[in-house]
């Protein structure tokens, strides 16, 4: 089949269906609502469950219950709604219930605006709610990847029994691009832990309360081992022209495509620049950045925020070279702006 034109939010929703998603529980919020609307149209014909909850709190707890039955289920929202879901996400992380949580992100703090932003980076990559936990956070950069990562997100969630967050700027949710639609996937992972009624087995309990300090610590160590495994095996990034680069720009999501354009232009001027695009925001691709820091002279974090990912870049670089920052909020910097920033740094540093 050839390519078809799809909107980011709808490609993501279709990707979830391709992955065998059977339930969507959500609450309307711009710029994510098309995902819910798509599911509301599709699920009645497919035999899946679409339910508009009374609140984000209820929606994430419906996901908790539905995921506990072993079904592939999801929710989608945006910044303020994702904040409301944090209580449930903490419970889901500790209960180790696989599910997909989508943040079609907008600018904050507070009600902020509906313009694109990446300022939920801290919230997404630090767990977001109470307690020591992490999510796998995938950052697509195209409408094709909105679909692909939704499918992959469900696989990762099942394999590691972890909530997976897919975070994309509002623009990516709203824009249209031609994409290849993937073949349907049949979820293959057994879930003997699911609460489905105890016929023929002893009862399953899904619980996050651990009153004994020993058990609590044991649970946390168990989660930590999983997170260590994720850091070792699942961190991913795309690198572009980094081998001989003096200056390496780091950007994720849609922002990375703008940066790539500026990098190509700067290369035409003979400036040795490259790009690293983290695909997993957590686990963060530390090793790739650390390795690049052995040859590069400098890093530049380009974000649609006031500077959040830059902290992870600095941790990865570990003082080896300076890390500079360029960011806007509510406005995606255009390629010319990034190009000018590259030129300014190159002239200043003599690259």
């Amino acid at each position, binding site marked *: 089949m050839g390519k078809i034109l799809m909107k980011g939010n709808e490609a993501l929703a279709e990707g979830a269906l391709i992955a065998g998603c059977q339930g969507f529980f959500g609450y309307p919020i711009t710029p994510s609502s098309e995902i819910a609307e798509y599911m509301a149209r599709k699920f009645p014909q497919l035999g899946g469950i679409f339910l508009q*909850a009374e609140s984000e709190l*209820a929606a994430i707890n419906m996901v908790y*219950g*539905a995921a506990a039955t072993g079904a592939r289920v999801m929710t989608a929202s945006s910044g303020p709604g994702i904040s409301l879901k944090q209580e449930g996400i903490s419970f889901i992380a500790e209960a180790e219930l696989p599910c997909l949580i989508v943040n079609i992100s907008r600018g904050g703090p507070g009600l902020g605006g509906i313009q694109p932003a990446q300022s939920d980076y801290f919230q997404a990559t630090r767990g977001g709610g109470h307690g020591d936990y992490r999510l796998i956070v995938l950052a697509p950069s195209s409408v094709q990847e909105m679909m692909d990562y939704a499918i992959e997100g469900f696989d990762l969630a099942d394999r590691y029994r972890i909530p997976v967050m897919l975070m994309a700027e509002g623009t990516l949710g709203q824009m249209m691009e031609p994409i290849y639609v993937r073949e349907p996937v049949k979820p293959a992972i057994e879930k003997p832990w699911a*609460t489905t009624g*105890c016929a023929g087995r002893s009862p*399953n309990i899904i*619980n996050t309360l651990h009153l004994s300090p020993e058990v609590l610590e044991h649970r946390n160590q168990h989660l930590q081992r999983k997170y260590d495994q994720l850091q070792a095996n699942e961190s991913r990034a795309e690198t572009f022209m980094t081998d001989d680069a003096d200056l390496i720009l780091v950007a994720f999501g849609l922002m990375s495509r703008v940066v790539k354009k500026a990098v190509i232009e700067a290369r035409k001027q003979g400036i040795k620049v490259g790009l690293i695009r983290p695909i997993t925001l957590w686990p963060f691709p530390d090793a790739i950045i650390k390795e690049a820091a052995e040859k590069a002279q400098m890093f530049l974090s380009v974000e649609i925020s006031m500077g959040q990912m830059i902290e992870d870049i600095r941790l990865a670089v570990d003082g080896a070279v300076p890390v500079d920052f360029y960011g806007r909020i509510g406005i995606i910097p255009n390629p010319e702006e990034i190009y000018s920033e590259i030129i300014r740094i190159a002239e200043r540093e003599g690259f």
Partner: protein
Amino acid sequence: MKTVAARPESLTGAQYHYCPGCTHGIIHRLVAEVIDELGIREKTIGICPVGCAVLAYDYFNCDMLEAAHGRAPAIATGIKRMLPENVVFTYQGDGDLASIGMAEILHASARGEKITVIFVNNAVYGMTGGQMAPTTLLGQVTTTSPYGRKAEVEGYPVRMAEILAENEGSAYIARTTVNKPANVRRTKKAIKKAFEIQQKGLGFTMVEILSACPTNWGLSPVQALEWIDENMIPYYPLGEFKNKEA
């Protein structure tokens, strides 16, 4: 030899952690007996609250989940929607259901979720040490209403059975108590009716059970049972408020 009384199969037999004179134990047993009698243990999924019954997953011998404070009806919704053939119940206290979980319970009822809610109303926050609940009576002394609940300061106690009975989605709503044998029998009957109506798919079902908390009321177990008669029932009348089968 004939066995006349035994532990229901739907209870694990784990020793309860409840205080002396607390009526949670009676209510657990009634729920378990009903599950046994209906033969639904292997397809029942229960959800515990945050509150004194938070550990109920240790006591019920069926698949169980533990919820965040007040969110049990939303979790029950997620389960029941995915597994409509199963039987789903929540077990919630008054702080959990009528305060922090007001939105979840009201909307589960409005949507007519085919679940059964066991609502234990003892007019006080038990597990956290006797603070005022939304169901605390006017004049009742608690640790956060130390001079007695006053309408002009803390407002009025909420009558959940009456509120939820108003929702079209509610199929069975009753209020009972367990302070004397006859009332225990009536409570069991109501619980059974609620589970049966859930199985018939008629809508949302809830049994509100007036329950004793001698520890936080500062009364002996016997006095606490009398206190239900003297103080709770006049404000929280017993009876069926909705029965779509009737």
